[in-house]
């Protein structure tokens, strides 16, 4: 029917509108006639989701397990739906839908989770469960997980709704297991013993070995022990589910791309081709403060490793000079302490190359030594505006794109003086701002660790640059360096290349939140 509100809402769901999805699930819950109509209309849509049911006695650990699975599925790129059924009170019709509390934070564009009261549905599922699964498929979920209300032995209806039924068994369920044998034990396709960190888990697993044949395949069922506490068994379980469901390929990440996305780091034997993990071919990197010195070098190094670079800095002509030497470079002049400038840089990267894989937050300022008691307020503010606020805002803007891609590496350039005091070259504003970068690096790293974005920092010691040019020839400066630096010299140009390439590339795929001091041993004593 054209102009029919439900049809319009279904179109919206098909286009990915989660608000319409939520509303229509409610409509199905509230009115069985709506549910029946939806079932009819959605019967012909090509089925797109694999469905897994988690069932088991109350408190067996279903929600906790589902939470762990969801995390892993999102990480692997699945559009995931979760339906969490909790019991409705037969007296009041109300319900405390508590499963969701176990999931923690669920804000993710690829995840839709919905709590359902059983509302008199049979066999530990809600009457609207089937319809809700269909709607999730229409929305685009390729995996749907359904948690039943704490089920008893006879609650086998879940089997008719899903492709795989997982029976969740907590430790210490000896006698109950016996009692369950006839019902839910028979239809389970897989047994998971949860809380494997607790005593009695091995005994439960052993007891399940006697369950005999059953499940869809009328065969022996796998028994997997998991612990949400240690994370043990979760990957094994996910892999087993995927294999059983014959899920081979994960749908591609949706984003506008003109450059090939980076392949995931493949497990490989150590060989003569180890340097390939440092390869940046096809990657897109933004380098701030790239007009001269370290920043210019960083752009050249990433470019030499294969990346296309977007270089920014305040002096446009200098950027043009740098870009003229490079094959794949875009110039985006901007001051990182200026909001519009920052946005323009990130936009230039996305408009030109369609993605951002690396951000080198290099721009930074310092001033002549000044005793703290005489630090001008303006100097303090200006230092922070560039060294920390500008850096954070760049990380946020580029990070948003990286999070959408579910991959990216941010390299913040701090300083040894973010790790130790810079006496006698007093600049407390510089030291404080660089110290802030070290811990901001940790904070962002932990926040984004599960979302494909790594954040690390390099803390250079004294290197020749515009900022330090007067030190190179100055004898007292050199005496100071000889006294404080175990290697008794400044860094040479090129001595940051390795650290940068390591942190920017897949070579550091398991490294996040770290600050690598490249300082001739300055901070080692």
């Amino acid at each position, binding site marked *: 029917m054209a102009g029919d509100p439900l049809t319009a809402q279904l179109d919206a769901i098909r286009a990915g509108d*989660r*608000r319409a999805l*939520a*509303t229509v*699930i*409610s409509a199905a*819950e*509230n*009115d*069985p006639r709506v549910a029946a109509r939806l079932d009819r209309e959605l019967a012909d849509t090509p089925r797109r989701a694999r469905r897994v049911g988690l069932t088991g006695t109350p408190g067996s650990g279903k929600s906790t397990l589902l939470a762990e699975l969801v995390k892993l599925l999102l990480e692997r790129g699945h559009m995931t739906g979760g339906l969490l059924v909790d019991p*409705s*009170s037969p*007296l*009041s*019709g*109300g*319900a*405390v*839908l*508590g499963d*969701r*509390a176990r*999931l*923690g*934070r*669920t*804000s993710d564009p690829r995840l*839709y*989770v*919905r*709590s359902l*009261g059983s*509302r008199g549905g049979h066999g530990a599922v809600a009457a609207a469960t089937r319809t809700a699964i269909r709607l999730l498929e229409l929305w685009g979920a390729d995996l749907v997980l359904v948690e039943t209300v704490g089920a008893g032995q006879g609650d086998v209806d879940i089997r008719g709704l899903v492709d795989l039924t997982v029976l969740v068994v907590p430790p210490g369920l000896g006698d109950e297991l016996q009692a369950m044998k006839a019902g839910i034990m028979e239809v389970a396709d897989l047994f998971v013993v949860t809380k494997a960190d607790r005593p009695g888990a091995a005994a439960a697993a052993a007891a399940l070995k006697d369950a005999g044949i059953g499940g869809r395949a009328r065969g022996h069922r796998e028994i997997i022990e998991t612990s949400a506490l240690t994370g043990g068994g979760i990957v094994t379980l996910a892999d087993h589910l995927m294999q059983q469901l014959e899920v081979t390929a994960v749908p591609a990440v949706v984003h506008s791309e003109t450059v090939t996305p980076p392949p995931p780091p493949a497990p490989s034997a150590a060989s003569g081709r180890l340097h390939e993990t440092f390869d940046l071919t096809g990657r897109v990197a933004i380098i701030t403060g790239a007009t001269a010195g370290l920043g210019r070098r960083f752009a050249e190094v990433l470019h030499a490793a294969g990346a296309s670079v977007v270089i920014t800095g305040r002096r446009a002509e200098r950027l043009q000079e740098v870009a003229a030497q490079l094959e794949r470079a875009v110039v985006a002049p901007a001051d990182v302490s200026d909001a519009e400038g920052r946005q323009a840089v990130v936009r230039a990267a996305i408009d030109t190359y369609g993605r951002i894989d690396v951000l080198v937050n290099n721009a930074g300022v310092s001033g002549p030594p000044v005793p703290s008691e005489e630090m001008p307020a303006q100097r303090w503010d200006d230092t922070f505006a560039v060294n920390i606020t500008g850096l954070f805002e760049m990380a946020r803007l580029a990070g948003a794109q990286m999070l959408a891609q579910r991959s990216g590496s941010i390299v913040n350039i701090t300083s040894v003086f973010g790790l130790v005091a810079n006496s006698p070259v007093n600049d407390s504003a510089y030291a404080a701002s660089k110290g802030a970068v070290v811990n901001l690096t940790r904070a962002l790293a932990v926040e984004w660790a599960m979302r494909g974005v790594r954040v690390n920092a390099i803390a250079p010691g004294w290197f020749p640059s515009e900022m330090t040019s007067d030190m190179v020839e100055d004898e007292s400066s050199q005496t100071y360096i000889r006294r404080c630096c175990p290697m008794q010299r400044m860094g040479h140009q090129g001595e940051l290349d390795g650290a940068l390439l390591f942190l920017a590339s897949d070579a550091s795929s398991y490294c996040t939140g770290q600050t690598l001091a490249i300082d001739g041993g300055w901070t080692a004593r």
Partner: protein
Amino acid sequence: MSAPEPLVPRVLLTKSFIDSHDRAIKTIALALRDGGCEVILVDYETPSDVVDVAIDEDVDVIGVSFMSGGQVAVTQAIVTALGEAGRGDLPVVVGGTIRPFDVDDLESSGVRAIFRGGEKLERVVETFRDLAAESRRRRAE
């Protein structure tokens, strides 16, 4: 045509994940359940989490419980985020440790009811049910 199913109000009850005190919020949850409501109970990390869950769960009312801090700032952030998400119509109710000097700011930020403790549970349930019914009606229009 048969009569439509009776309304089952859906309520989101939430508190900060840092707040370990959950006696109050659980008491309200059980009272609402016994009053025929479906209650989604979650902890939030950021105010925008509350909005995301409220939308996905298609709730009719949001109740935010406070024990330690953030009463005014968090409530304002939630109300603002709801507006930005186009759901400024969703009623927000706050409860728990609400200091006297927070009341004016909370009221002017647009919360529909404030429970500072000591109210009869029936009153609380009735308020949630009324707000839920009103919110549904407004959305149906």
